[in-house]
């Protein structure tokens, strides 16, 4: 294949190194599937949706409240973080002088590197007591949404900034030459051409939001229930795993792996979706 044996050797070493990542991924999926197959083979799918409660020791496996909790908290946080993030990015790109734009971007970059556990801790000591003055106990769906918003917002600003920067400069020059107003340029030129980049970035970010564990666990109260209003505590799929993994046995343990598998499937679907969007941008 190669004239030098050393090169052939190198090639095969490199290939096997690449293989490690792929094997890692396959192993993760394999473990999730094999561990959760124990419960899937014994307990019918409808039990996860129609059982009376989540009491694994009494063979009650109602996963639905946790799924709903995860969905609510993710959707809530995206609902707050997307407009805040996008408007901040527009401000950063089009409405402030260059030096301010640069420093804003630096600040957002730093924020995106702050560990989520720090945001969670801050939620515990500041946001939860604040909400408790409105309605006890403070640990609630709303607290989770607020903390999660903090965690994903820097990422959304970075994505939006990136998408706006990738807009063809020629289009902007043309629009300026045509005498369009700043609002029309942003609304009718920048936005449509940044749309796909924005969308694929936001989809990826929502995958991160749904997988967020400890920060959410710290502020949500972790009661397994369907929340009646936003001040009631909830438990998400991720925090359920983190809370019960330590002592779970047999079917219970398998049920936790099943919730891991559900999370993984959601995230993989989001990835494939985002990939689709990016591919279709490249071809156009």
């Amino acid at each position, binding site marked *: 294949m190669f004239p030098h044996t050393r090169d052939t050797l190198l090639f095969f070493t*490199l290939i096997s*190194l690449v293989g490690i990542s*792929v094997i890692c991924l396959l192993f993760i999926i394999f473990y999730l599937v094999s561990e959760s197959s124990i419960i899937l083979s014994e307990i019918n799918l409808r039990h996860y949706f129609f059982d009376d409660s989540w009491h694994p020791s009494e063979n009650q496996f109602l996963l639905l409240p946790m799924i709903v909790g995860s969905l609510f908290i993710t959707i809530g946080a995206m609902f707050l973080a997307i407009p805040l993030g996008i*408007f901040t990015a527009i401000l950063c790109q089009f409405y402030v002088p260059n030096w301010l734009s640069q420093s804003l971007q630096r600040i957002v970059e730093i924020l995106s590197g702050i560990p989520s556990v720090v945001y969670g801790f801050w939620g515990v000591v500041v946001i939860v007591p604040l909400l408790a003055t409105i309605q006890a106990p403070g640990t609630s769906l709303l607290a989770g949404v607020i903390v999660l918003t903090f965690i994903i917002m820097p990422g959304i600003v970075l994505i939006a900034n990136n998408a706006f920067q990738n807009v063809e*400069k020629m289009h902007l020059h043309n629009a300026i030459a045509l*005498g369009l107003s*700043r609002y029309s340029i942003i609304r009718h030129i920048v936005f449509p051409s940044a749309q796909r980049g924005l969308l694929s970035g936001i989809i990826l970010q929502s995958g991160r939001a749904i997988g967020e564990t400890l920060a959410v666990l710290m502020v949500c109260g972790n009661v397994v229930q369907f929340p009646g209003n936003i001040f009631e505590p909830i438990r998400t799929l991720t925090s359920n795993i983190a809370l019960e993994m*330590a002592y779970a046995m047999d079917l219970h343990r398998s049920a936790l792996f099943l919730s891991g598998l559900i999370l993984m499937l959601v995230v993989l679907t989001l990835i494939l979706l985002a990939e689709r969007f990016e591919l279709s941008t490249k071809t156009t």
Partner: protein
Amino acid sequence: MILLPSNHNLADRILRFICWICGSLVLSFFAFLFFDILIQGYEKLSIAYIFSNSLNAGRAGGIAPMLVSTFLLLLLSLVIALPISIGSAIYLAEYTNEKQWFSRFIRLSLSMLASVPSIVMGMFGYAFFVIALNLGFSILSGALTLAAMILPLLIRNIEDTLRNIPDIHRLNASALGLSKFRTIFQILLPMANQGIFLALILGIGRAMAETAALLYTSGYVTRMPDTIFDSGRSLSVHIFDLSMNVPGGEQSAYGSALVLVLFLLSINILTHWIGQKIQLRSIT
């Protein structure tokens, strides 16, 4: 950034108003968070806090064992991940192009691996490294799990660096009759060393911020670890444990949060500095 014309029609004013509101909201929230941690954490921070053992479940005493565990976790995970990622990056950059199905498959696997929720990664680490490989709750298990998490980030960054080396160097090398082996190890890798260093630092930042994956792999013993087969609590897990399971541990958690944030801040400054150096070199 292109400066758009600033004609003040109504729509433009409204958009500018909304952007400023969102931008200042974002900034003031984060300023609040940062100064809160800075002021509250500063009271706790001292030489003794950093260099002494923790007492009374972390309420009193210092964080020396957590710093040592964190350091060992980082060191070990990078020692494991770096050779694998350099090899994979060389393969992807030098032996494939982006259109081949095999390289697309690997890239897709990498982006999937990158977005595995950290608690799912933790479950996998628990089932595979802790139980199946019988490593127990140990720094080694934690480091292996972390290594799997940071692999995609490292590979992506190192690959980008290699691709940014102009082809003229490869052509020169082959015109001189150098083997692929020599071209890679004596020309391309030395040229990429700053980029590899940058990737390394990004990996450190990511690994330091990780909590959920470590909970069930490296454990949360507050003792000073003797070997890598001992359980050890990382700084981020310490913050989590203090604010969730230790009543009255808040002040100490503020101190640890400040230490963690300062670390990540310096990492950000370092990456920025290196990034600028690399950019400057590629221009000249």
